[in-house]
Each structure stands twice: as structure tokens, then as C-alpha cells.
């Protein structure tokens, strides 16, 4: 059955869009306040540009009613600029991207959220943390201390659920950018069982972390070690580890997204993504399919970057628990059947209100985490020229 496309929605008025953007503009100004008073000119410019960038993107979301394409600009910028700022900081502090194993054991490493699920079992059994990071306040290069960072992550996660993976994760942007390059996917048929990959990695790595008493994922399987800090290759083991990191990065973050137009690392591999899916049950926001409007054209299914929609889930009027709330399906639906939704309310009743409430929460988080990372990366680049 041919899909009858609804007429394109008129853009929201500029005045109304500005009014809706005002809270985000204020929040953004507050978040970047410290950047304006920095004596370094490159940092000052980076702060102003990033603040404006985040506000303009939100304004465009309001004006065009579209979420995904504007969020993608932010997310790709975050993915590309994170390694720039991070590598620069690591090089300044340590002189190398290679981290010696003794530094890891001593917890003198920056905080990363991905191994959070891997530290739960060892902590429960032995009251010890295997994650390479300090649990003490002000420990580690992050400066915040792991306990505080885990607390912030938990608070945000309870609100946005797996929205974390689309608005806060500083790794997913590279593959999202890669997936956006080709006009059409070369590989279109993907076995749906690969969706279980993240759960398998989570199970295997959690058990191995407990057995080996080290964060097995960080030591062996993290593709993003290729663009952050790798294990110092002092021996054969170190070289094998780095070889695995580069291979996984090349395959999951570069090649496969180009071939499939999907976020393959997130959809088929990331253990944190699987863990975060559990919190989609606690989040008040989700995406629903209004069955009364849906003519199963499967455009939403095709547009989903993580295969979180199946024929069965569409028939049930919902996404799978792995939905990252990126908004791709909502934007793609020609019948406005894919809608933002607040739990406990009726489906498709004021979906724009649900979208707004979610975006205020998610974009505030994006500015807080991603904004400062983008500004840091930008300042590093500008420092070369200014």
C-alpha cells in the first residue's frame, strides 16, 4: 500500500520558537559562563561559538519540528571533537596516549562511563572496584571522582533512560557521522539476532571482569581506545590489545556504519548500551507508534540507526527497549504515527508537549556534558591558529 505523505508542516513562527528556546539559551549561557572569563582567547572564542551552536540547534528543532537532523549535528561534532580535546589533554599531562598498566591500577585515568556495569559484580562480591579510576573524591584525571560521576550518570539516566546514548555519549558521534555519509546503504539485510550482541558482550565482559579482576572490556575490547588512550604496548600482549582496539574501531565505527547506515557499534556491540536499555523502563519518556495512523510503510524501521523497531514491535505500537530516543523514526514517519510519549498518558495526545519536555531534559544534559567537550576540542584546534 502506497504511503500517503502528509503535507509538510509549516515552520513554527520565529517568535514562538525563540520563546521556547529561551530556557535553553539561559542554561547554555550559565554552563559556558566560566569560558567567557578565561584569559586564553581561543577558549573564549570556543566557549562563545559552542554556546551559540547549542542554542541555534535547539532553536532549529523548535522551528522545524524536527529532532534527529539537528541533534545529529551536535552529536557528530561531539564525536569528532572529543578525541581532539582528550588526546591534547593526555599528551600535555602524560606526554603519550599510551597508558602504562600501573597507572591504570593506581586509578590515574580519566572517568569513562562504559565500564560502569562491569564494576557492579566485583564491587558486590569483594567491595573493590576493578574499573581503572579512583572512587575517592577528586581522584583520577577527571577531577570529579568516580563516585560523584556515577551519581550524576544515575540521576540523568533515571530521567532520560537510553537517551544517554543519543545526547551524552561522546563516542557514538563518529559512527553516526560515518553512517550519514553514503546516500544509501550497501548492506541492507542484517540478521536481527545481531541486536543481541551488546547483551552478550555485557554478559561475557561482566563475568570475565569478575573472574580476572580487571575491567575486561577496557583491557580487551573497547574500540574507542583507538582514539583515546591505549594500553602502552610494552610487550606482545600490549600489541595484541592495541591491534584488537584498532580492528574493532575500523570495523564497527568506520566500515560497517558506511556500509549499513546504522550505528553498528552501538547497535551490535556496546555493553553499556545494553545496560542502559534497562533504564528505559525507569524513564518517563518513550517513543510510541500510533496504530490508528500507522500504515505499515516501515520507513521508521528503516530509519532507526540501532534496529530498535521491528514489525512485531510496530504492531504492538512501541519501540524495543534498545530505543535511544534519537528521534529518527519520528522525523521519518510520513503519517505522524511515530510520536514522543510520556508514560502514563494516552498515546498521540499532545505528542509535541512530550517531545518538548524530553528535549528540555536531554538538551540540558547535552549542553552540560557534550557542550564542554565540544568547546574543549574547539579550543584545542583554535589554539593552533589564534
Amino acid at each position, binding site marked *: 500500500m502506497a504511503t500517503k505523505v502528509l503535507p509538510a508542516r509549516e515552520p513554527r513562527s520565529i517568535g514562538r520558537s525563540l520563546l521556547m528556546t529561551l530556557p535553553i539559551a539561559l542554561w547554555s549561557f550559565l554552563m559556558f559562563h566560566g569560558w567567557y572569563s578565561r584569559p586564553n582567547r581561543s577558549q573564549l572564542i570556543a566557549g562563545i561559538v559552542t554556546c551559540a551552536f547549542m542554542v541555534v540547534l535547539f532553536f532549529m528543532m523548535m522551528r522545524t519540528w524536527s529532532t534527529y537532523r539537528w541533534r545529529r549535528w551536535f552529536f557528530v561534532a561531539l564525536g569528532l571533537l572529543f578525541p581532539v580535546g582528550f588526546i591534547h589533554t593526555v599528551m600535555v599531562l602524560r606526554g603519550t596516549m599510551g597508558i602504562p598498566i600501573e597507572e591504570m591500577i593506581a586509578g590515574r585515568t580519566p572517568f569513562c562511563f562504559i565500564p560502569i556495569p562491569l564494576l557492579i559484580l566485583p564491587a558486590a562480591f569483594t567491595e573493590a572496584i576493578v574499573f581503572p579510576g579512583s572512587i575517592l573524591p577528586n581522584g583520577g584525571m577527571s577531577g570529579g571522582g568516580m563516585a560523584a560521576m556515577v551519581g550524576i550518570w544515575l540521576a540523568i539516566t533515571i530521567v532520560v533512560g537510553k537517551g544517554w546514548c543519543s545526547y551524552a555519549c561522546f563516542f557514538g558521534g563518529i559512527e553516526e557521522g560515518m553512517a550519514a555519509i553514503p546516500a544509501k546503504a550497501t548492506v541492507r539485510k542484517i540478521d536481527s539476532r545481531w541486536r543481541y550482541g551488546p547483551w552478550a558482550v555485557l554478559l*561475557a565482559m561482566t563475568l570475565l571482569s569478575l573472574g580476572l579482576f580487571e575491567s575486561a572490556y577496557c583491557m580487551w575490547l573497547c574500540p574507542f581506545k583507538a582514539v583515546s588512550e591505549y594500553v602502552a604496548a610494552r610487550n606482545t600482549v600490549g600489541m595484541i590489545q592495541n591491534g584488537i582496539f584498532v580492528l574493532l574501531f575500523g570495523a564497527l565505527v568506520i566500515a560497517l556504519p558506511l556500509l549499513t547506515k546504522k550505528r553498528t557499534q552501538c547497535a551490535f556491540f556496546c555493553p553499556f548500551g545494553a545496560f542502559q536499555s534497562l533504564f528505559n523502563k525507569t524513564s518517563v519518556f518513550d517513543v510510541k507508534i500510533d496504530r490508528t495512523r500507522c500504515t505499515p510503510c516501515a520507513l521508521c524501521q528503516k530509519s532507526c540507526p540501532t534496529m530498535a523497531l521491528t514489525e512485531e514491535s510496530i504492531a504492538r505500537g512501541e519501540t524495543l527497549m534498545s530505543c535511544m530516543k534519537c528521534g529518527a523514526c519520528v522525523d521519518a514517519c510520513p503519517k505522524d504515527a511515530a510520536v514522543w510519549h510520556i508514560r502514563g498518558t494516552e498515546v498521540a495526545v499532545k505528542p509535541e508537549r512530550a517531545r518538548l519536555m524530553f528535549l528540555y531534559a536531554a538538551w540540558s544534559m547535552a549542553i552540560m556534558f557534550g557542550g564542554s567537550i565540544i568547546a574543549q576540542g574547539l579550543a584545542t584546534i583554535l589554539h593552533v591558529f589564534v
Partner: protein
Amino acid sequence: MATPFAFGEALVLGLASGPACVASCGPVLVPSLLAERTGLRLNGRYLSTFLATRLLGYLLFAAVAWELGTLVSFRTTERSWVFAVIHLLLAGVLLRYAWSVGRACNHSCASPELVTIGGAGKHRIPGAAVLGFLTGVSLCPPFVAAGVRAAEAANVAAAMLFFAVFFLGTSLWFVPFAGFGWLRRNEAVTTVARMAMVLIAFYYLYAGLMTLIRKSVYGY
């Protein structure tokens, strides 16, 4: 050595080492148990088979090591060989098990049985038995701790008895795993378990090969 006190010590040592045993055997036990079909009885049978053959592994190792008189001073070079071979065997069995689970899912029958590995003929062995035996003969830290104490036994029978009581203590920590039988099994759970088994098998394969290479190249 063969006094009530020593056996009490073996039991306490086993109880105290239980979490370390669970951590050591968990990567093998949990995915394979999840890959089995649902049902408390079937999962209980899996666990019983796993633990029985694990005990067999313990006793066999204790007997051989005690007879050789090297329970404690087991030379590092020989230990490396044992480690490497066990790791490679574990990798092979886990890969075969993951494959067998797929076949078992396709050939479900009215009375579910434990997933077996091996040919379709008479010589099929429950995967739980093989995995239990291999984890039993693995030299995990609690096992070495028990070995140090059992080495002081007057004879091989006392050493084996010490190991048996120690095993009893550690086994209590495994009892909750029978509760996995209550978990609903569907394609998702089985597929995740199979994929996890393959990943863990790759780790053991790497560990075994690296030990062999290190031994061949560097001699330790």
C-alpha cells in the same frame, strides 16, 4: 591431618573461598546454564552434573599431584603446560557447546535433556559434565589455597578427603544458580548465552595460546 578440626578447616576454607570460586567458574557456568532450556529440574540437573564432575576434577588432580609429591612445589613450567591445555580445551568445548545449543534448539523434544556435545551416536556427553570437569582441574586461586593445606596430609586419601570437604564448602555458593531455571528462555536469552560463550571461548583460546607461545619462545 585427618582430624575433625582439619575437616572443619577445609569446610571453612571452602565457604570462605566460595565467591572466588564463583568468580573463577562464572564465565563458564553462567552462559552455559542460561543456554539450557527452562525448568528448575533441568537446571538443577545441569548444576548437579557440573558440580559432580568438578568434584571429580578436584579429586583427580589432588590424587595425581599428591602421588607425584608436587602438590605445592608443582613446577611453574609444568603448571604453564597444564594451564595452557586446560584453557584450550575449555575454549574448544565452549565453542562446541555454543554450536550444540543451536542444534538442540532446532530439535526440541517433549522431554528436554541437557545439551550434549559430541556425535549423534552413543558417545554423547552432557556439556555440563565436560565443563564441570575442566573447571575442576583448573588451577584457580582457592584451589591452590586448598592444595597448600592438603599437602600436609598424611596420605593421599586424607588429601582427597580434605579436597572433598573443601569442595562441599565452595559448592554452597553455586546452589543459587539453580534459580536460573525460573528465568524464561526465549530466542533472545539463548542467543545472548551462545554469543557470550563464543566471546569467553575466544578469551580462553587467547590465554591458552599465549601461555604456549610464551613457554616456547621465552621458556616460562
